[in-house]
């Protein structure tokens, strides 16, 4: 016999967040008149300790068996209040929330209308709460391993932390080498330590760690399952080089007929490579890869009399027969560290990036100043045939950032400082250079940033506040048209080299990851975290975590910090060895199920199967749910003609009274 529902309603003021717009007293009074409501109260902050205590005491003293909290979004505090119920000895699923903040007080100005709506939302919540059922979540074993997607600094750091904690890590990197964007950088701001010097040891550690299985030149192809039990398929693209044989000697690359003829991605196209290549000298693994889109033998089936690389390789490592390989494994957690792409400056044609070779991006500048770069660290540019050292150099900030016209409203957070750093490096390498920085605002918010900014200005670098309107060529020079907005003076600045401080954008192929892992994007199109403040490394998909710039622009220390945070989060299910399975999954009424299999065909998780049961002596098929696989989406239930499959807590008999309450036929 089910107990008669005794509902307690708790209306939160949320300081003035709710109370300023919604008459919480009126809502409380109204709630007292709702069926089965035995008590209704309001309080300044329901989520606070004393607020929760109110609920807990009422549960004990008034014998409440259902609780309605009218406050913020359940996406915010449902876990908080569930926990409170549990602590008071009540089943945590006897909670229903009415969202009177995000979807009421914050979005309506009219106090009367907002109060009326809040009443209806409370009525709907009460009508559902009366019919809630106790649920118990179960636990299943979690696979003691993790997948890390992307082996830039974020992925490497996270992989190392998880591996150091004693768990297996599958580290998957799309390009032939680990290292990511950080490997392309010369010095790091504001400390000016050498990027490669601090990164490469970690790259090597990641490759050699006994707990890390590294897949370079590989992509995640398929992910299924759920937290604790993900099933992953990785495509190891054919390198056409047997990595077990390749010694990285480079003999092949020298002989390649296309050597020095293909722009090298690592050098942002400033340097050249052959069809068989090592992306950069410190690459890990130090194994060569054949570019299948360029290699003559692979594209045309013919390379002179025979591929010269094959001849040259002393180890006999070249293998044109190699094929892509699919590797499957199971992991308990997934960490996404796929990084960023830089803004494509051709979208701002006024800067002439496509027209003038001496207009370059900040990342190209990194390669230009890097000792391992195509010029050996010498800043040289081409003036026609002539190679010269530029003397007049301008930096333009906020290219593709804080710019609604290109769809990027956000600040990329690193450009101010990398510009300052590059300006400093220019001054360091070409002491007589005139260096100007055109800026809107300088954002030097990080540790040591303001000091560094101050230092480079003292070095004679001129900061001009103004957003250039146009760059054009005059003779051998580039002319920047700009207004100095501090003095309201229009200027024309003749320079040799323009460096565009391009911003950070989501990876152009981020869509693939979104679809693979069911991630969402925030308005800036970076991956959306579960909560901007409180769950910055989690995602809406349990067991999937974010690290680094895929979640939003950040500098190296922030990236590393987030990677370590994400690793710590990912370690929770791994270390516990168990994960809780949500109790809000679908359930079949086998007595009414007609075994049509619609739900089986609908379920995206293959969580439902038809089983044969004995119904009064007849062997009939009915649907059965594998609760570990079910995610509780309820698509099956809306497609069930006999209403025989229902997601717990979202049953038809729980939703229809909500409709009645909101429809006003209460």
């Amino acid at each position, binding site marked *: 016999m089910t107990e008669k529902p005794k509902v307690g309603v708790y209306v939160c003021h949320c300081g003035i967040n709710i109370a300023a717009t919604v008459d919480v007293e009126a809502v409380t009074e109204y709630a007292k008149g709702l069926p089965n409501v035995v008590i209704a109260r309001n309080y300044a902050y329901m989520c606070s300790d004393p607020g929760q205590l109110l609920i807990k005491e009422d549960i004990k003293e008034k014998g409440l068996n259902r609780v309605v909290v009218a406050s913020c979004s359940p996406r915010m505090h449902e876990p908080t209040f569930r926990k409170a119920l549990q602590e008071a000895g009540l089943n945590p699923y006897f909670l229903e929330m009415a969202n009177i903040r995000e979807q009421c007080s914050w979005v309506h100005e009219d106090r009367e209308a907002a109060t009326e709506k809040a009443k209806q939302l409370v009525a709907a919540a009460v009508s559902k709460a009366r019919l809630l059922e106790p649920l118990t979540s179960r636990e299943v074993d979690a696979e003691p391993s993790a997948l890390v997607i992307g082996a830039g600094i974020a992925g490497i750091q996270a992989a190392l932390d998880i591996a150091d904690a004693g768990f297996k890590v599958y580290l998957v990197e799309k390009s032939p080498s680990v290292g990511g964007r950080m490997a392309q950088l010369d010095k790091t701001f504001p400390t000016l330590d050498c990027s490669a010097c601090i990164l490469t040891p970690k790259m090597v550690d990641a490759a050699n760690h006994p707990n890390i299985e590294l897949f370079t030149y590989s992509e995640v192809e398929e992910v299924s399952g759920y937290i604790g039990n993900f099933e992953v398929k990785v495509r190891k693209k054919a390198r056409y080089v047997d990595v077990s044989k390749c010694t990285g000697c480079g003999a092949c690359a020298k002989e390649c007929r296309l050597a020095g003829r293909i722009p090298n991605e690592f050098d942002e196209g400033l340097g050249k490579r052959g069809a068989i290549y090592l992306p950069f000298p410190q690459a890990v693994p130090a194994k060569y890869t054949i570019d299948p889109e360029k290699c003559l033998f692979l594209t045309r089936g013919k390379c002179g009399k025979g591929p010269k690389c094959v001849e040259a390789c002393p180890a006999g490592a070249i293998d044109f027969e190699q094929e892509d390989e699919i590797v499957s494994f199971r992991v308990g957690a997934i960490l996404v560290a796929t990084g960023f792409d830089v803004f494509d400056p051709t979208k701002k044609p006024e800067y002439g990036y496509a027209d003038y070779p001496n207009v370059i991006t900040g990342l190209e500048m990194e390669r230009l100043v890097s000792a391992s770069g195509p010029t050996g660290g010498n800043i040289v540019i081409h003036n026609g045939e002539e190679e010269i050292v530029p003397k007049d150099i301008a930096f333009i900030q906020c290219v593709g950032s804080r710019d609604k016209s290109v769809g990027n409203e956000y600040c990329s957070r690193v450009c101010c400082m990398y510009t300052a750093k590059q300006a400093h490096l220019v001054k360091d390498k070409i002491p007589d250079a005139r260096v100007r920085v055109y800026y809107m605002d300088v954002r030097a918010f990080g540790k040591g940033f303001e000091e560094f900014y101050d230092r480079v200005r003292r070095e004679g670098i001129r900061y001009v506040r103004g957003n250039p309107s146009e760059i054009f060529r005059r003779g051998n020079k580039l002319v920047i048209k700009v207004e100095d907005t501090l003095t309201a003076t229009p200027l024309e600045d003749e320079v040799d080299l323009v460096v565009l401080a391009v911003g950070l954008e989501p990876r152009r192929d981020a869509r693939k990851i979104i679809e693979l892992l069911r991630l*969402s994007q925030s308005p800036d199109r970076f991956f959306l975290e579960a909560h901007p403040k409180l769950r910055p490394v989690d995602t809406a998909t349990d067991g999937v975590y974010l690290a680094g710039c895929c979640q939003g622009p950040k500098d190296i220390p922030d990236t590393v910090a987030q990677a370590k945070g994400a690793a710590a989060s990912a370690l929770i299910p791994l270390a516990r060895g168990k994960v809780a399975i949500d109790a809000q999954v679908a359930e079949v009424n086998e007595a009414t199920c007609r075994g049509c299999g619609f739900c089986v065909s609908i379920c995206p998780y293959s969580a439902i199967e038809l089983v044969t049961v004995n119904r009064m002596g007849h062997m009939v098929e009915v649907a059965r749910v594998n609760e570990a696989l079910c995610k509780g989406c309820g698509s099956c239930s*809306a497609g069930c003609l006999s209403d025989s499959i229902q997601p717990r807590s979202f049953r038809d008999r729980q939703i229809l009274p909500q409709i*009645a309450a909101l429809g006003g036929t209460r």
Partner: protein
Amino acid sequence: MSEQFEPNIVAFLCNWCSYAGADLAGTSRIQYPANIKVIRVMCSGRVNPLFVVNALQQGADGVLISGCHPGDCHYMEGNFYARRRLKLLKELLEYIGVDPRRFNMSWVSASEGHKWKEVVEKAVEDARAAGPFNQFRRRQIGW
């Protein structure tokens, strides 16, 4: 001048995209009409089209259903099923003479707080233009 009709609109929002989008509108303090009242479901695929019929019977002047954009569904496919089913229901309602402005469906992602506002405004304007629903409302029956 007579008072403007304030339609009552029941909305079904998926937890992951549209409900989050509506929450975002809240945190961004984007103002929209209070006529809309949301029932949270985990996925737009959960919305049994007969909920719409029931809502109209029980006093809604309009119904809005919102889910993730195609390809964005947290459950991969739920919104595709919702799209197919609700299209059929929409056709059916129109065919029996229910004003099509009483039924709206949208894709609103977790980042589209502004779109949510626009969708709500359209749903409210539509239902307002259609007037009070009294075609087969339960309370119309004198019991």
